[in-house]
């Protein structure tokens, strides 16, 4: 009996305490039946007062960002919001969020490779030498043909849309710049305007810095395992003009990744990520990893022999790398898993595919030269069947044939590649012969009816 009274008293005490415990756990918001709990983080670990305040305030204001950050290695290494986002008051990108108004702390939402180089100088130095930095932004910013495509044609100036208006810029902002990057423009409050931010890997920032690391190591977790998976590359390297992820998936390498890649170890330290952690390479293994005797590199051009992107394939040189050296390095990659016979066959095959494609291209160039000399080319290439087909010859079919061969994707090398290369070439030949014979340009372009998809 006595025991019953004691337990009833204890139970009563607990029931009194329960509401207090509930209150102490934090605020609970009720939104149409869904209970959302706002989490507040209190950190006491190696941060300055200002840095702690950023974390504590943002755990309420932008909890998703803080979740990603605390689950990544930045959080473990006590690299906080403050370390990457605080800039000098003098910086052209300096602004203040509501929480900072009245203080002497200035931040920027834009974080370029220059910030990352504070802790990862070697990686950024290598990255800046690659096609992922300055060269990536060139089409959007420096090449007039690309600008005509973006603004005049895609941007609807041909329909009468106002130059520089929101809809006129939409195609560039939603498409081109998301991979290539563009130059960030700032408003009066030093915040980005005109849809110039965020952007792709070659973004150019107002402080003169170039490059966005968070394209591959997405913010705010900055996961190395994420960047080592082919999906990291696939947000740009896909589609009709350079279907690298599709080529990879149909290759034996990709087949193995899709079959049991989830069991692979993507977390090994740089330079130690070796066969055994994986049993087939991802993009990062061949193009970047410190496999075998090679060192890790963030210069993705370093192991390339040919330029497989441009109208005519040439051995890489100058700012695009060193093709001879690149070939030697890539062979060292292959050596970790393949015999030299296998490697040599594969590399010879690529050389032959490049020569075959170049032969088509050189013939096309010679036909175009003739037509130009006789005044048989339209001024607007997008209304001229011959010129439009010539674009598809290199930009779509020709790239697929070459890159499909380089990465062992037979369907892309053949059906989307060389099969269409010869078809496009034959159509160009017919147009050429017709124009030479009649001395006239045909009235209509029929390209989009027969153009390769």
């Amino acid at each position, binding site marked *: 009996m006595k025991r019953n009274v004691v337990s009833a008293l204890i139970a009563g005490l607990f029931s009194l305490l329960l509401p207090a415990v509930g209150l102490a756990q934090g605020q609970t918001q009720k939104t149409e039946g869904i209970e959302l709990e706002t989490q507040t983080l209190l950190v006491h670990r190696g941060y300055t007062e200002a840095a702690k305040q950023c974390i504590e305030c943002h755990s309420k204001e932008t909890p998703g960002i803080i979740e990603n950050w605390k689950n990544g290695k930045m959080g473990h290494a006590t*690299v906080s919001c403050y370390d990457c986002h605080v800039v000098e008051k*003098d910086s052209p990108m300096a602004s203040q969020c509501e929480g900072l108004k009245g203080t002497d702390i200035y931040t920027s939402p834009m974080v370029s490779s220059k910030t990352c180089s*504070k*802790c990862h100088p*070697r990686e950024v*130095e290598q990255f800046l030498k690659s096609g992922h930095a300055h060269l990536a932004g060139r089409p959007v910013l420096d090449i007039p043909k690309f600008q005509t495509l973006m603004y005049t044609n895609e941007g609807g100036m041909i329909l009468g849309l106002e130059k520089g208006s929101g809809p006129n810029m939409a195609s560039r902002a939603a498409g081109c710049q998301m991979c290539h990057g563009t130059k960030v423009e700032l408003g009066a409050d030093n915040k980005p305007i005109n849809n110039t931010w965020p952007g792709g890997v070659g973004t150019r920032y107002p402080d003169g810095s170039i490059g966005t690391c968070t394209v591959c190591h997405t913010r705010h977790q900055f996961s190395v395992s994420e960047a080592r998976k082919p999906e990291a590359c696939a947000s740009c390297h896909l589609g009709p003009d350079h279907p690298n992820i599709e080529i990879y998936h149909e290759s034996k390498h990709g087949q193995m990744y899709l079959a049991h890649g989830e069991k692979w170890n993507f977390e090994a330290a740089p330079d130690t990520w070796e066969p055994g952690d994986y049993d087939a390479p991802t993009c990062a293994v061949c193009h970047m990893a410190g496999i075998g005797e090679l060192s890790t590199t963030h210069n993705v051009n370093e192991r390339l022999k040919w330029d497989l992107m441009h109208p005519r394939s040439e051995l890489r040189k100058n700012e695009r790398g060193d093709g001879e050296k690149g070939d030697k390095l890539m062979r060292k990659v292959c050596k970790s898993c393949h015999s030299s016979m296998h490697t040599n066959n594969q590399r010879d095959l690529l050389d032959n595919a490049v020569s075959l494609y170049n032969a088509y291209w050189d013939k096309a160039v010679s036909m175009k030269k003739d037509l130009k000399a006789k005044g048989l080319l339209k001024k607007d290439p997008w209304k001229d069947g011959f010129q439009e087909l010539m674009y598809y010859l290199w930009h779509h079919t020709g790239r697929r044939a070459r890159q499909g061969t380089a990465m062992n994707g037979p369907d892309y090398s053949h059906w989307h590649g060389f099969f269409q290369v010869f078809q496009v070439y034959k159509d160009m030949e017919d147009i050429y012969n017709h124009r030479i014979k009649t001395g006239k340009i045909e009235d209509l372009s029929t390209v989009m009816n027969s153009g390769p998809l």
Partner: protein
Amino acid sequence: MHPHNKPSLKGKRWWPGILVGVFLTAVCVLASGFMIEVTNTDSFCVTCHVMQPFRTAWTNAPHGGANEKGVVAQCVDCHLPHGDFVEYVSAKAYTGTRDILLNMTIDPENYAWIERLRSRREFTYDNACRRCHQNLTPTGMKTSGILAHRQYLLGTLDKHCVDCHEHVGHKNMITEIKTFYGK
């Protein structure tokens, strides 16, 4: 030879000697420890009018004394090389002369100071930084700093101290320049 030509001939023989003597004396005085000390202070540097905003920005920064310990690095501590004595004195003579000439010839209000910041590598020396900052991975340094400095110490980087620490030594320098020249 006419006798009254003798003194002038003698004079001709002496003049070059006197000139060389005066020049050497000037060099010796300027290169003396006393003159080096006198011209090594911020108060001397700021006698060139254009240096004022830079001095203000320096005073507000930890290198200018705005630190808990009150340690101050003088202009020359960072802006002259601290390798050997000959390098130091010759850089000092060259820099000093150039600065005086530029001070008299440039239009400071329209001079591209901000562009000049990009060349900071040329007038801020690593051996100067390293004279004070001998241990680049001290106890208590954050992992990020250790990672970055390790690459530097291994010599695998084409980086100077000021490539990463671009605002070191002067606080809000661009603002100070703009305020001073009324822009």
